[in-house]
Structure formats: C-alpha cells, structure tokens
C-alpha cells in the first residue's frame, strides 16, 4: 500500500529508566486515514501514540532516541516549539478529562490560548465544533454549566470538540472508547469515520473489532516492538507474521 505519510517515525527508542518501552520503531502513518495501533496490554501502544505530540517529555526517567517527523519536521529537534507541535494534534485519552471550567470554556480554551479574543468568533468556533462532535443539541442550553456534570460519554465528545477547536491536522485517540458504554462508543466511532476525510486519525485500541470497523491501516505491536504493519485488509485477512496471526485469531491477548 503506497500512501502519503503524515507522521514518519525513524528508529524510535523509548526507555523508562532501564526498561525499554519502544524498540527501534520505524513506520509511516498515512495522511487522512484511520490508523489503528493494536497489541496486548503493555506492548507500548500508548507510548508510541504519546511520542507523536511529545507528551512523554514530562514522564519520570524517560529517555528518547530516534526521530519523529510530522509534516517533514523533526519534532524532537531542540529548536522546535512544543506548543505548536501539540496544537497540530487533538488528543482523546482513555477516560475523558474535561478541564475544570464550563462546557463553553472547555471548547474555547484552546482558541483563546492561541489568541482568539473576539466573542463572536469564539461563539462560532464553540458551536461548530460541538456540532461536529454531535453533542451540540444536548448542551446548547447549558453551555455555562460545569463540564464535570456531563455523563462520561458526553464528556468524551466534549473532549473531541475541544481538541478539534484548535484546528489540528491529526487526532490521537488513546483507547478513546474504553470507558464508554456501547452507545457512546458507537457515536465516537461514527465521528471518526466522518472526520477521516479531513484529519489523520491514529487510534490505540485493544478492541480488535473496533480496529476492524474503523482502520485503514494497522500497526501490530508486541513487547515494544512493531511486529507488523500494513493496510487493514492485509493485516486482518493475510498477516505475514505468526504472532499477528495468533493475536488476531484470539490465541493470546
């Protein structure tokens, strides 16, 4: 499968203290496709995802070598402005973490940081992104109430809106549906499918069926190594590695 890469990872090694969490990863993430990173717990899926927007930096005793390019720019270059890199990516974590402020302020938080002060513009941004995340109808009458009062499923969609409001190019999801009920998960998945025409989406998931439903491209990881990667079709119907076969076949998880 040939494609235009959006994120390029070259010889990436990550150590937590003495333990090596990622072993010499080299892979390209396709532009405007859904890429799923699958593998058993503790295989380094989340670490790889977090390396894309430098969220590993604040972790205890972490050491990173190798390079990650986003839009041809080495994001681990010492001259790079980290906030600008992170602005390019929206992040959805396992559990939604709304910021301690109102629903409106949650979405307006990013745009405000990046200098948008105009009330009308902000209103538009908030409304548009809440609509894209399909939560607008549920919250339009209570935009000034605390975000913490929403249900978990609503909070996750709010977090999606909040991420989209800074106009990223990439959406990173770290098992974004794992804390949600099936209905809420389905809504989030539906959003991803709609959004992939405009965004590069990278999902970490331990739910194989979810990867099958959503992914165009799949990375299979095991114990910090990238075992196999390729189009979803290839990986799911005709994996080359024995280990991938076993994982997908459900022999181990």
């Amino acid at each position: 499968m040939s494609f235009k890469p959006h994120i390029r990872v070259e010889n990436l090694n990550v150590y937590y203290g003495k333990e090596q969490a990622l072993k010499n990863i080299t892979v390209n993430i396709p532009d405007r496709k859904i890429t799923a990173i699958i593998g058993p717990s503790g295989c380094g899926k989340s670490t790889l995802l977090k390396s894309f927007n430098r969220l590993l930096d604040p972790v205890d005793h972490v050491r990173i070598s190798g390079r990650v390019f986003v839009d041809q720019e080495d994001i681990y270059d010492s001259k790079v402005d980290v906030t600008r890199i992170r602005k390019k990516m929206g992040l959805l974590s396992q559990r939604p973490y709304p910021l301690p402020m109102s629903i409106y302020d949650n979405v307006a938080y990013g745009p405000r940081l990046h200098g948008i002060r105009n009330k009308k513009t902000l209103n538009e941004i908030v409304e548009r992104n809440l609509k894209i995340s399909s939560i607008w109808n549920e919250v339009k009458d209570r935009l000034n109430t605390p975000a913490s009062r929403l249900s978990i499923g609503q909070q996750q969609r709010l977090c999606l809106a909040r991420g989209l409001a800074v106009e990223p190019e990439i959406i990173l999801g770290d098992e974004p549906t794992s804390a949600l009920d099936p209905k809420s998960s389905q809504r989030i998945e539906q959003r991803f499918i709609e959004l992939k025409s405009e965004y590069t989406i990278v999902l970490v998931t331990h739910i194989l069926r979810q990867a099958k439903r959503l992914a165009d491209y799949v990375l299979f990881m095991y114990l910090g190594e990238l075992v196999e990667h390729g189009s979803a079709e290839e990986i799911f119907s005709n994996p080359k590695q024995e280990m991938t076969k076993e994982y997908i076949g459900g022999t181990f998880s």
Partner: protein
Amino acid sequence: MDLRKTEEKIFKGIMICSTCCILAILLIILITILVKGLPAMRWSMITQVPKGGFYLGREGGILNAILGSLVLAGGATLMTCMISLPIVLYLNVYVRKRTWITQITRFSLDVLWGIPSIVYGAFGFTLMLYLGLRASLLGGLIAMCFLILPIMSRAMDEVVKMMPAELLEASYALGATQFETALKVVARQALPGILTAVLIAFGRGIGDAASVIFTAGFTDHIPTSLFRPVATLPLAIFFQLGTPFPEVQERAYASALILTAIIFIVCIVSRLLTRRFTRNVIR
C-alpha cells in the same frame, strides 16, 4: 466466622471512639473558654484599647490585639501565598518528575515544619538585629512568614500532587504552555485544597505567640506603621493570664474566646466564598 464479626465490631468501635475524642477535645476547650470568658465579655472588649496597661488593666478592651493579630496573620498569610504558590506550581507542574530538586525541597519543608515556633522567633530576632530593625509589625511579619511557609507549601503540595497527569496532558495537548496550564487548570482544579492550605497556615499564624514575642513586641496602641510594635491576641492572653488579678485573668479567657471566634468566622466566610469558584472542579 463469629470471630471475624467481633473483630469487625471492635475495630469499628475503636474508630468511633477516636473520632469522638476529636469532637470532645474541641467541645471541652470551647466550653472552658465560654464558661470562664463569657462573664468578662463586654462590648468594650472588642471596641477599645486597654486602659491602665495590658498587664494590669481591668478596663478597656483588646482592640489593639485583635487588629494587630488580623493585620499580622493576614499579612503574613498573603506574603506566604506569594512564596508558596510558585514553589508548589514549580514542583508539580514544571518539574513534576521525581528529581533530586523536588526530593530535597520536600524534605527541607518537612524539616522546617517541625522546627518549634520559638526558634523562628529567635531566628527572626537575630535577622532583625542584623537589619537594624526593632520589634515591629515588619519583624513580626517576617518571623511569622518563616513559621507558616513550610505549613502552607507542604499542605498545598499534597493536594496539587494528586492532580491527575491526564488533566495536565489535556491542557498541553491543546497547545498550552506550562504557565497557562498552571494558572488556568491546576490552580482552578486545586482551589479547594489550596484554600484549605491557606486557612491552616492562617490559623497557625494567628494562634502563635512564640514567633512574635521578640519580633512584633507588644503595645497598647492599634497598629499604624510597619515599623512600630504590634499587639497580638495570643500574647494578650499570655500577659493577662500572667497577672495576679483574677479579673484580668478572666479577661484572658474572653480574649481566647475572641481569637477562636475570629478563626471560626474566617473559616466559614472563606468556605462560602470558594464554593462559588469550585463548582467547575473535576471529581
């Protein structure tokens, strides 16, 4: 099976007893100062300065000490906030990782917490001599600051440390800097805890006698200048209890009652005020 049930009962009983102890201690103290202090309570206690000297005076009130304590403890709390908040935000937002600098800072604060307040008083006094200051409001502020700084910092540190890393990540992921995250997310989320820390420090400061005895001095006048001595409630109580006259000793309990009432009011008012700001906190 029965044994386990008895065990359960015994331990539950012990826990309830311990909890009751706390309530009983507070209740007994309150009853003591109420019974002994109320007869001496007069309107003039809180509206006038002492007549005939604070040590022997049976007339007038302790307005000098009330105002002095409020200015001193309030000022010291404010000054300490300005030092504590940056420490705590630095340790928990900027450094965050467990490094030698965070470990040493926390250890130092723990040690400082344990130093008796009279030592801070003596240290403050030495410092004042060096700076050429006399017993004054400024001297008292500095000494009290030393005293409550470790208390406030460590109490704040414990709450801010509990902040989930994901909340910070959420803010960073939107392109926020550490400063923006500290100010807009961390400070907001931790506000109830920060307030508790401030209150604990204020309570400790306003109730302390030893740190101010050399540094702030005592006076019959209400505080007007940073460079003049200032009276404080704990010292007023101390002096009044030390007199040979039962009437003046009774006034000591009234003073204690006033001091307790002040702490009580400050706690309630600040709790009510922050309730308005904490409705957004994520639980």
